[in-house]
């Protein structure tokens, strides 16, 4: 085949870049902008202001946080727990999502339902159910031989409870991404000499990365804000920052300090996301334009 032959047909057009042009339809986003201003920007501003003004103007609230190792421990514990939850959720969610792409429509429905049903149950009810299941005289320890394994008031308890809550958030984006992967590519790879496991690793897995990363992000950021589950299933060492904020708000009424905690959580999370976006293209993970 000659070079002329190859260039005779035009190449696919380049992807259009830049902002979409605004026209009258653009006005339709105004209600959403208003809503965001009312429920997000304004309260956030209020929280930010309060953290610097309550009980008196200054940076007292922030100094208090950084002076006590207890509070720093809580912050570190929050991120470590969220990281572990993300890891375990992905390890469980990835094969589960993959299985969903292979299953027949009927079994796919069953698997989907199994993920979603807990999703529709009250968080409080689910968490108390875990207490009943995991306590020393609970179902799990009844079935296990020997002395009861401590599964409550510790990290495993928190992980079990949080992973179950986060599983749908991991499975849904991953399944969506995997469904879009052409399985015939695996066949092509095998035809070209790749063993099935190699084909999966080199062809399928890279194509699933955006879905996995989107899931990881969603699970990690959501996990940072948990407080009911760690409060009920965790022990004194497993306090997360959300729990601390509630304590300060409704327990000791230190609204300014609670606001400062919220701001710190926000800033550290934002910083981490920025760091991540330098490593990977976040917009691509979230399905934005290429």
């Amino acid at each position: 085949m000659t070079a002329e032959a190859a260039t005779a047909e035009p190449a696919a057009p380049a992807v259009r870049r830049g902002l979409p042009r605004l026209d009258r339809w653009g006005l339709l986003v105004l209600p959403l902008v208003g809503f965001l201003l009312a429920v997000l920007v304004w309260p956030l501003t209020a929280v930010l202001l309060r953290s610097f003004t309550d009980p008196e103007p200054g940076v007292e609230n922030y100094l208090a946080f950084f002076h006590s190792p207890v509070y720093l421990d809580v912050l570190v514990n929050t991120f470590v727990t969220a990281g572990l939850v993300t890891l375990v959720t992905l390890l469980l969610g990835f094969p589960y999502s993959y299985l969903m792409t292979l299953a027949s429509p009927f079994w796919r429905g069953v698997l989907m339902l199994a993920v979603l049903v807990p999703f529709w149950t009250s968080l409080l009810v689910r968490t108390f159910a875990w207490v009943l299941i995991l306590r020393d005289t609970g179902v799990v320890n009844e079935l296990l031989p020997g002395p009861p394994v401590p599964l409550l008031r510790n990290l495993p308890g928190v992980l079990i409870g949080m992973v179950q809550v986060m599983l749908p958030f991991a499975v849904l984006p991953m399944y969506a991404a995997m469904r879009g992967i052409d399985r015939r590519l695996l066949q092509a790879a095998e035809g070209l000499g790749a063993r099935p496991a190699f084909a999966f690793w080199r062809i399928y897995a890279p194509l699933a990365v955006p879905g996995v990363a989107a899931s990881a992000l969603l699970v990690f950021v959501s996990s940072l804000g948990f407080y009911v589950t760690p409060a009920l299933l965790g022990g004194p060492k497993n306090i997360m920052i959300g729990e601390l904020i509630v304590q300060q708000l409704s327990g000791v009424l230190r609204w300014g300090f609670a606001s400062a905690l919220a701001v710190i959580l926000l800033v550290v999370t934002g910083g981490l996301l920025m760091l991540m976006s330098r490593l990977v293209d976040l917009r691509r993970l979230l399905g934005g334009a290429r």
Partner: protein
Amino acid sequence: MSDGGSVDVRGVVKRYRDTLALDDVTLHVPGGEFVTLLGASGSGKSTLLGVIAGFTEPTSGSVAVDGRDITKVPPYRRGLGMVFQHYALFPHMTVWDNVAFPLRRRRVRGDELRTRVEQALEVVGLGALAKRLPAQLSGGQQQRVALARAIVFRPRVLLMDEPLSALDKRLREQLQLEMKRLHRELGITFVFVTHDQEEALTMSDRIALLRDGRIVQAGTPEELYERPSSRYTAEFLGESNLFPGRDAGTVLVVRPEHLGVLPQGESLPQDHEAYDCDVREVVYLGSGLRVEVELRSGQRVVARTAARGPHVPKPGDSAIVHWHPETSVVVSDDE
């Protein structure tokens, strides 16, 4: 100088839950030939190709390449090249890495890897696009990359499942020629699947016509066109006119180019068979005329005649349609 492997399919049956996709298929593909599996959609072409490639496990029967039974060999050890209608390029790899993929699986490295990838891209005329991603190529270019990827590891057999069906007509015709040239240059066996009879006739050394999971007839394009064994073959390939046969269960096939149309009253050439008819439509094709006539029975018959001559038929003429018996073929009526 045949570098092509022979392929032998013996008694292959493939049953899906309620369909018999292949019903006892036996096919011999001599090394180095260009063989086309032709058939309507759903006739089992892809299933047969999948059985040869190893993607589809036959319910019974065997497949051999160069006499070696490979029925139980997984696809990644068969070493056959494969091109799909949907290209199946790896979207996250550049053109270069796509083509290098089968070589890397075979532990080809360094200079040899580079030379062979470049050669393969040269052969399909895409050397300049090596750094692109598949999404940045047109359909025709993507299929060329797929072709390069399928031949770069020098398979002895290349399997192609409707590789040109997704392309527009002009590009398809161009690639048909390029594939013929590639077949000549490489000397390897091509097993090509298409539903397009014209494509099959122009490209193949041999055609196997499939219908409902069975091979109806296999032979050279000429054999299938000139000496169809059944009405199905005659009607599938090219245009044909059917007349009642002498024996029950048979029909007489006459190709349009073998029919003549004379005005009523003209004397027939010796020994010719003929029917009275009325001329209904005359279309000028440049190379000749396409004349559609209606027999007394109401049947429509198509003839191709010269555009010049003493008797150019016009619509409405009373005429005689005639042919030499040797140009007609008696076939079984399998409709």
